[in-house]
């Protein structure tokens, strides 16, 4: 059977599972719609969090990014896993004990201020919309590459599926479909990784394979990483495993970006609300562990995939006659993900990295995962599985984000500010309407993506890091931080971070290099400074303002102890 037939079968099959689960588990109350009625067991919440978190970018792009960045790619690996340590230690158990519906709601209650809640709503909406646009685009791309449908049709199919389960089903359906999507995406990621590791090194476990010796070809008997470093030296590129060498990011920037990604991860509302769905504080802690374990499986495999792909690409393509290129090259040339221009007219493909003018081969990062099965000569069903996995990753993240958007609008705007006397039923309807509008907006961005999607993702992390994380942590660990402190901290943290990113990305992109950066920190890492500003301002302003009311202090006290979460 051809790749396309297999893709139709696997995508059709997994989509029917998702829809089946959604119909079976749909929510009938706001509690079910927002937080799945508090009855998701820890291990399943861990899987759902994994799928919620791992987006099209993690699944499709990350290994390729690392493949081109070498050591510097560690920023993603450390940043996107280390954030879960912060979540588990500093936030998850306490948010669960607090036990309501949304993150802005926690901010509003803890800081006894509707204005604080509104600021939080605006941040949550901005961060979530930024993210969801990228997911719909990912859905469209997978459809167009594997199913030969138009990108826009792909986006619309994706919208319909997400609409069905996110809008009708709410958090309960989202959770259980995410569990299924985690299973699909992790299998789809591991099968090609294991096969390639085995082919290249004779070691089936990719995490061990990328520290093993190559068994075949001109470099047989050499360690894989040694080989890559050697190949890089020969091509005049910085060594793959070397840190902070010319042509790569400086130490201070690597540090700042890693912190910003970690703290941003721990401040993303769609991840935080997952911890509201479990039955107890203990389950919230354990689900943070399960989530990190399930995410870690993919994140420790990704750097292995990155190195396999790097060696395979250079060995099979560099200085090889274009006429004798493997068939996957021509398969993917039509998508524009790989391009060859014979600059010196010798009929051979010369690869020197894209910054070298003599380079003749342009290779897109996404190809490293998407074309992996073909590079390794795996059967058609594996290629189809990767397509299904990419869709699972994109759809699960999109659904989680849509829920944040809809609950921010229905619960934090309508119910609390505009129309507090709403009944549960009316609120549920408002939530569904908000989700519908959000799906349409997300779809619009998927079809007509604003040119700056890649830039705004850094923006989303910077904002999450400089807005939510500090005031959530302070709200739990200090009883003394006041509403004035929190509001001032959030606003200054956001203003600084947003200002810095906007200045270097849109106003003066010509100045966007390390000579002009503040302390050598790129816009990607500036969220770290924004976070520090938020912490500092919140603490200082709190010292000079009236302590929070007694009942707020008591509330802070009570979220610190697990007993009582059953209420």
């Amino acid at each position, binding site marked *: 059977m051809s790749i396309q037939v297999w893709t139709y079968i696997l995508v059709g099959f997994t989509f029917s599972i998702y829809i089946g689960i959604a119909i079976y588990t749909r929510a009938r109350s706001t509690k079910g719609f927002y937080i799945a009625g508090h*009855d*998701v*067991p*820890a*291990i399943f919440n861990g899987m759902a969090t994994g799928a919620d978190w791992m987006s099209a970018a993690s699944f499709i792009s990350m290994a390729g990014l*690392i493949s081109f960045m070498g*050591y510097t*790619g*560690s920023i993603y*690996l450390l940043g996107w*896993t*280390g954030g879960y*340590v*912060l979540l*588990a*230690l500093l936030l998850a*158990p306490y948010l669960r004990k607090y036990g309501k519906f949304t993150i802005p709601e926690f901010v509003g209650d803890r800081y006894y201020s509707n204005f604080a809640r509104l600021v939080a709503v605006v941040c949550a909406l901005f961060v979530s919309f930024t993210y969801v646009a990228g997911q719909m685009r990912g859905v469209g791309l997978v459809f167009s590459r594997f199913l030969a449908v138009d990108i826009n049709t792909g986006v619309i199919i994706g919208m319909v599926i997400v609409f069905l389960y996110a809008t009708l089903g709410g958090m309960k359906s989202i959770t259980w479909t995410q569990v299924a999507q985690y299973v699909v995406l992790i299998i789809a990621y591991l099968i090609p990784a294991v096969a390639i590791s085995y082919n290249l090194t004779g070691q089936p476990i990719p*995490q061990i394979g*990328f*520290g*093993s*010796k190559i068994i075949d070809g001109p470099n047989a008997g050499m*360690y*894989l*990483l*040694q080989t890559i470093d050697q190949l890089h030296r020969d091509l005049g590129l910085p060594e793959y*495993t070397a*840190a*902070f060498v010319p042509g790569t990011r400086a*130490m201070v920037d*690597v*540090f700042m970006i*890693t*912190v910003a990604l*970690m703290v941003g991860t721990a401040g993303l509302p769609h991840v935080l609300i997952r911890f509201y769905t*479990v*039955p*107890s*504080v*203990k*389950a919230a*802690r*354990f689900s943070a*562990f399960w989530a*990190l374990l399930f995410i*870690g499986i993919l994140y*420790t495999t990704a*750097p292995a995939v990155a190195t396999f792909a790097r060696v395979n690409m250079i060995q099979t393509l560099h200085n090889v006659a274009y006429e004798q290129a493997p068939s996957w090259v021509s398969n993917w040339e039509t998508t524009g993900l790989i391009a060859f221009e014979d600059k010196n007219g010798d009929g051979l493909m010369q690869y020197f990295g894209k910054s070298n003018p003599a380079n003749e081969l342009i290779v897109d990062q996404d190809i490293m995962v998407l074309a992996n099965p073909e590079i390794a000569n795996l059967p058609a069903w594996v290629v189809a599985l990767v397509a299904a996995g990419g869709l699972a990753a994109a759809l699960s993240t999109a659904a989680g984000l849509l829920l944040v958007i809809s609950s921010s609008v229905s619960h934090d705007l309508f119910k609390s500010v505009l129309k507090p006397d709403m009944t549960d039923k009316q609120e549920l309807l408002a939530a569904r309407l908000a989700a519908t509008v959000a799906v349409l907006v997300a779809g619009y961005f998927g079809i007509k993506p604003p040119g700056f999607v890649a830039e705004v993702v850094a923006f989303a992390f910077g904002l999450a890091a400089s807005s939510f994380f500090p005031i959530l942590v302070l709200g739990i*660990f200090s009883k003394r931080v006041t509403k004035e402190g929190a509001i001032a901290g959030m606003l200054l943290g956001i203003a600084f971070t947003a200002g810095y990113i906007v200045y270097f990305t849109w106003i003066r992109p010509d100045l966007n290099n390390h000579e002009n950066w503040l302390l050598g920190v790129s816009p990607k890492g500036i969220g770290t400074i924004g976070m520090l500003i938020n912490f500092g301002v919140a603490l200082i302003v709190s010292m000079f303002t009236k302590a929070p009311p007694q009942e707020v202090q*008591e*509330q802070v*006290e*009570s979220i*610190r102890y*697990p*007993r*009582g*979460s*059953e*209420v």
Partner: protein
Amino acid sequence: MSQSHKDLDPQTRQGLKRYWRDNQRIIFIMLIIWFVFSFVLSIFFVRELNEFKLGGFPLGFWIAQQGSIFVFIIMVLVYCFMMEYGDKKFHLEEQKKKGDDE
């Protein structure tokens, strides 16, 4: 929200204080380990550590792309068990409910 803690007898209040202090201590130690693996070993001293090899891996590179993640996972699991013990010690554990177990 659960019961108010103001009305509790002094002994229970003392217990709650100790529970929270212990928790903060554990968190602090965990964050130090987290900082050492995330930043000190993976970033600040990665070049020095790369002089050592772990099989086919330069050591610093391995910690940055693999080792730290394993440490994170183990740390969070250890924290879960320590807090479970602490919850029991101070009688703060929650009533058993469906799905409560890992």
